[in-house]
């Protein structure tokens, strides 16, 4: 963050230091939200941000907290700048901390420009509706919950569920159908354990993807306030790569729950009036200013696709974090503990998951003509099987008809063959659809009501040939 220094003014008049906030005497020229330097009596320097300016007093939030700040010898220096990320093509392959400093032992970035980490909202009239299918190689996603370029699709998980492995698999395998272009990956670790962060970096290294990736790492032991800047730095890097370097960028943000908890912690320190469960009332807007940086802009080559990961406290989908996220994102991929207990990987809940951009991303030209029909029929078939499972636990399986039994085993096969796949198995969308058709051949042909006749004739395996 060695930004150019325009002018410097400083003060030693600090009246309060509490938690991460400093109240200081105002100096003319200080800007709202600008970045200040806090020099401690020990000589250590910290970065802070102005969160309120007034004629007499100014409030500064210090990145790294106010420990060891003393009111006599510490000083605050103004630089006249807001928090910026130095950008250049050289950021690819590099890893930074939550303040944007390199932590991979490499040299600092020679910036071609400095970008405000809060970004600038895209003009809604300039946006292009996302419509290009991304093949993740995972059947539950490619078949039933399609990801498209420019979409924001979160993983709703719970503690102990394999969201990191699924996200890593998506990152390894994501590619555009019928095009050789590779994604640039931007990865932000927000308050996660060191092991989790290391897992992602190792995964990128092993697949050779690290040279087209940028990492921003704030681990659980890093300063809480940097959890707010980490995802914004990552998104600023992503926007730079997409809009200025014409790249298709996939951004992974993990874990948004830590982000929101940091937001709550800092809001409480400022004495703000809390909303639901103590989270600030502006959390929807705050999350939106991050998630909404996904998209496509007409006339520009690149795109920003965002895959946020969050762990639902107590698996509760109505908790404010998943709830507000779901209101902003275009669908959600929800992990299922019952499926995980059945040792099915990836344990993705078909009924709660949804991709709102699916309609635009599938069909002829994108995937295959029968895709939407197969999706509807799979869903209906699996739903029927699940319903019968519940019924049979009440009334006993003896009371079921033969037709019911077929649906029960179809649902089992659907879980074992369609949902379940290897962590390193990459299925094409055609393979995914074939698996579904194979299972359809079990159920009575007249039950395939959601599929057009011509597709049944073309794709349904002939009796005897089905496995």
């Amino acid at each position: 963050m060695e930004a150019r220094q325009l002018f410097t003014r400083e003060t030693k008049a600090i009246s309060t230091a509490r938690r991460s906030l400093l109240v200081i005497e105002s100096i003319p020229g200080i800007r709202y939200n600008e970045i200040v330097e806090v020099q401690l009596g020990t000589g250590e320097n910290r970065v802070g941000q102005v969160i309120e300016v007034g004629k007499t007093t100014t409030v500064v939030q210090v990145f790294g907290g106010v420990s060891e700040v003393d009111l006599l010898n510490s000083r605050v220096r103004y630089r006249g700048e807001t928090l910026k990320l130095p950008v250049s093509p050289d950021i690819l392959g590099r890893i930074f901390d939550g303040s944007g400093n390199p932590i991979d032992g490499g040299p600092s970035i020679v910036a071609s420009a400095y970008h405000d980490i809060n970004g600038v909202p895209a003009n809604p009239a300039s946006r292009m509706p996302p419509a290009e299918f991304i093949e993740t190689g995972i059947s539950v996603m490619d078949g039933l919950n399609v990801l498209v370029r420019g979409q924001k699709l979160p993983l709703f998980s719970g503690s102990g569920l394999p969201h990191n492995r699924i996200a890593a698999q998506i990152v390894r395998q994501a590619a555009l159908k019928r095009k050789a272009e590779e994604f640039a990956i931007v990865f932000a670790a927000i308050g996660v354990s060191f092991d989790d962060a290391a897992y992602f970096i190792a995964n990128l290294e092993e697949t050779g993807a690290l040279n087209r990736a940028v990492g921003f790492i704030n681990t659980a032991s890093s300063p809480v306030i940097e959890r707010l800047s980490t995802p914004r730095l990552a998104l600023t890097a992503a926007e730079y790569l997409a809009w200025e370097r014409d790249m298709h960028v996939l951004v992974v943000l993990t874990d948004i729950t830590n982000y929101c908890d940091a937001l709550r912690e800092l809001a409480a320190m400022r004495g703000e009036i809390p909303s639901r469960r103590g989270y600030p009332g502006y959390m929807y807007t705050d999350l939106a200013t991050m998630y909404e940086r996904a998209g496509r802009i007409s006339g520009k080559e690149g795109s920003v696709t965002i895959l946020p990961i969050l762990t639902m406290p107590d698996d509760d989908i109505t908790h404010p974090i998943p709830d507000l996220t779901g209101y902003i994102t275009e669908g959600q991929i929800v992990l299922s503990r019952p499926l995980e207990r059945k040792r099915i990987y990836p344990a993705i809940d078909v009924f709660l998951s949804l991709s709102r951009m699916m309609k635009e991303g599938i069909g002829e030209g994108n995937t295959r003509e029968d895709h939407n029909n197969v999706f509807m029929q799979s869903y209906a078939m699996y739903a029927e099987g699940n319903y019968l499972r519940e019924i049979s636990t009440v009334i006993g399986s003896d009371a079921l008809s033969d037709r019911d039994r077929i649906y029960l085993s179809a649902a089992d096969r659907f879980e074992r063959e369609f949902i379940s796949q290897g962590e390193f198995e990459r299925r094409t969308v055609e393979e995914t659809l074939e698996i579904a058709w194979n299972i359809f051949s079990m159920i009575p042909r007249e039950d395939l009501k959601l599929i057009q006749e011509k597709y049944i004739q073309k794709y349904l395996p002939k009796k005897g040939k089905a496995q």
Partner: protein
Amino acid sequence: MGRIWRVSGPVVIAEEMRGSQVYEVVDVGEERLTGEIIGLEQDKAVIQVYEDTVGLRVGEPVVGTGEILMCELGPGMVGNIYDGVQRSLVTMIEDVGDFLLRGIRTDALDRNKKWEFNPTVKAGDTVHEGDIIGTVPETGLIEHRIMVPIGRGGKILEIHKGRFTVLDTIAVLEENGDRKPLTLMQRWPARKPRLYKRRLDPVNLLVTGTRIIDYLFPLALGGKAAIPGGFGTGKTVALQQMARWSQTQLNIYVGCGERGNEMADVLHSFKKLRDPGTDRLLQEKEIFIANTSNMPVVAREISIFIGVTMAEYFRDMGYDVLLVADSTSRWAEAMREIGARLEETPGEEGFPTYLGSRLATFYERSGRVECMGLPERTGSATVIGSVSPPGADFSEPVTQSTLRIVDALYSLDVALANRRHFPTINWLQSYSLYSDSVGKWWKQEVNPEYHAVRDRALVTLQREAELEEIVRLVGPEALPENDRLLLLIARMIREDFLMQSAYHPVDTYTPPARGHLMLATIIRFGDVARELSEQGMLVSEISQLKIVPRISRMKDVPLEEFDKYIKDLWSDMEKALTTREGGM
């Protein structure tokens, strides 16, 4: 001129502001950000700023404009896309590119474009406020009627036919002995309701093309309705469907704090879709206001009032206008954020205590009215707002405050969404207070049987809900035959009538007469089936009759084949009764 004294988020306090008025628009800082004064105390003004305040310094200038926030009204609005403070986003792309920079000014109405003006009054006539003095063909669907602004009037000294910009003089009035020009454009303060002669009862159906709304819970032209729903319940699709197909002359879509990609989808689809009545592009009867969730929060608050002012303006021309606001919860959150910054005493869940009254000032601007001026005419403005209750919990303050104001509720249901039943409007929780008044319209315009058929359907659905409880305990096999038959008919009502695909070219829009025939056919089948059942046929046999899938295909039958299709269905049902099987 004042100076910045304090900055906290979107709230700026300026000093040396004596002489300002509340709601006056001010330019804040050296970048001249647009703000509005929301409070005055001694020489200090509390200002809400409609743009990001990052980088403001104490001491920067604050300049009052002497005016409260005005909405520009005139030709050039239809088909345009505005942000929350009525800056044209289309013009902004030309001026500054694809991203929204701060301090940018664009005119709401293009100052250079010339419009064809055809006078309908002549020199020597005396006109009064609200009188129509001429027309401009704005788009293929909208004839823009130019009215004498409220508070003006007099003898017309001259009036010209020809091509004019919005600021050119089209006529000169003699007002109190002075010569005063009239232009195509007029202005109106966004927070102030426009005037009318008197209010009329909302008695005519607003045709939305969505069957469950038009038939079971009809909305009246000039009515007010709310659509609450948790995420994933298809709220936005439901609203977009209304904005697309409603048979009103002009629609206004206010995207308030919602998704950018969705807004892009709306904008692009309206460039392609055609109005079912006229086959013209929908864009020719639509105004968009797009203030997405990442755009400045405070602008959400005013965007709704800008939208409703436009709606009233077109209402005053004698048109039926629909305003759709997605989402009023984001709008309420903007108020909460400002309230918190001002350190007001919060009400429930941190929302300001005036939440309910502020919501009312918005919804109450709907209505069917007798317009000001001549020729005599009536117009209507209908308002539909979506609500996004946290955790789909309807007991929260925004939903509850809204329910006290609106007269129709379309309650979206997460359980229906999980069953992929769309639209997810729950038929047991939704209501419409217009069903009686609009029912008369149905009887006169469509079919005298309307009430009978509607009531039968509602009773069947209600009974189904009761039976489902029993089924859950004892299984469907334990029910008597007549209850099983009811479940079959209820399922047909749900799947073949209430479920409607927004993506199917035919199913997406259902005209009232077609909707009536569809439901009447299912009800008739229920009667036929009951007789067959009494004659000894099992419900399991009835459900296998060939006519059942034919009834479910009704919704996809193209308009031109529909009448014959239904006629055949009915005659086959009659045959079945006499022969016990017939063509069924």
